[in-house]
């Protein structure tokens, strides 16, 4: 798992791109993907899972594939958010996977 944590935020943006387009990664990811017609998993989706746990300030616009379990689901003005301390994420579907983009606090 430690190697997975090395993918940093720059890697996250790349991963999001990969998830959307299924283009291959350059290096450093933990998983080689077999893409088929029926069931494919974008590269390093699982690798990303651990990285959002770094609970320091995250730049607005950063995209991750999961948020820490301690985050709470919050509705503000009929919009769904995940609030993780001072960091707010807005979920959205990128392809068939939910991703979370860091946004300015809505309140």
């Amino acid at each position, binding site marked *: 798992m430690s*190697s997975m944590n090395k993918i940093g935020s720059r890697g996250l*943006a*790349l991963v*999001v*791109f990969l998830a*959307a*387009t*299924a*283009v*291959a*990664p350059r290096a450093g990811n*933990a*998983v*080689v*993907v*077999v*893409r*088929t*017609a*029926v*069931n*494919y*998993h974008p*590269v390093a*989706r*699982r690798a990303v899972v651990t990285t959002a746990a770094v609970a320091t300030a995250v730049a607005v616009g950063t*995209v991750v594939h999961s948020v820490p379990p301690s985050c709470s*689901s919050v*509705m503000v003005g009929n919009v*769904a958010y995940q609030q993780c301390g001072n960091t707010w994420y*807005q*979920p*959205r*579907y*990128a*392809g*068939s996977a*939910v*991703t979370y*983009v860091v946004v300015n606090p809505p309140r």
Partner: protein
Amino acid sequence: MRMHLLAVTTVAAVALGTGLWSRPSLAKSAAAKPAVDPDAIAALQKMGAFLREQQKFSVRASVTTDDLLSSGQKVQFGGTVEMMVRRPDRLRMNVRGDRRDEQIYYDGKTFTLFGERVGYYATFQAPSTLAELKEVTEKRYGIDLPLADLFYWGTEHDGTADITAATHVGVASVEGTACDHYAFRQKDVDWELWIEQGPHPLPRKMVITTTSERSRPQHGMVLTWDLSPQLGDQLFTFAPPPEAHKIDFDVASQVGSRQ
């Protein structure tokens, strides 16, 4: 290397889904490629024609997919895909697996993607037929519809040209059903197909092996068909559970904008 793998498997997936079953023009190419048994190609075409005749059906696929750990060890993930179709404009899909959780609803007007585990769903106004839907979901929304290749078996795209070998391996039993077992080869991919014998030439099992990768990862599925299912309208229209929240599709990232 990985890019190569992805490209190859994607090509294979497209080829598998699109043309192999649909084109009757094998005679010439078979003469030029004696490794391709024309009877094996004819079996694909017969299967495709039969599938295209079905106006409604449900199919359940038990799926396994290999991945590699960073150590190089190959591991297998599993899941199921349930698909219910009423032509021309109804689709319902449930995808459940170690790493996937998707429900898809399409009623000729609205497409909904719902992830039960995360509790989020998103919708878009959909085209009025399944054929158009596949185009939109893949190109605009980046959503791969599992088993959606079924829809392409009726198109004119030609995949037979990619096949470098086609063989009837023999007769085999898939979950108690007698099938003809075929093996095909094309660049970087070997694949096998088990087609039910008798009046219902259905694909009952498929295995895809990526031969360009040293570990030769495989993707396999066993299919169970129901050609006379009861498919009521309510199956195809999403009614959000109280705890589910609607979110948006991130369409921008689907049009090739690098972040």
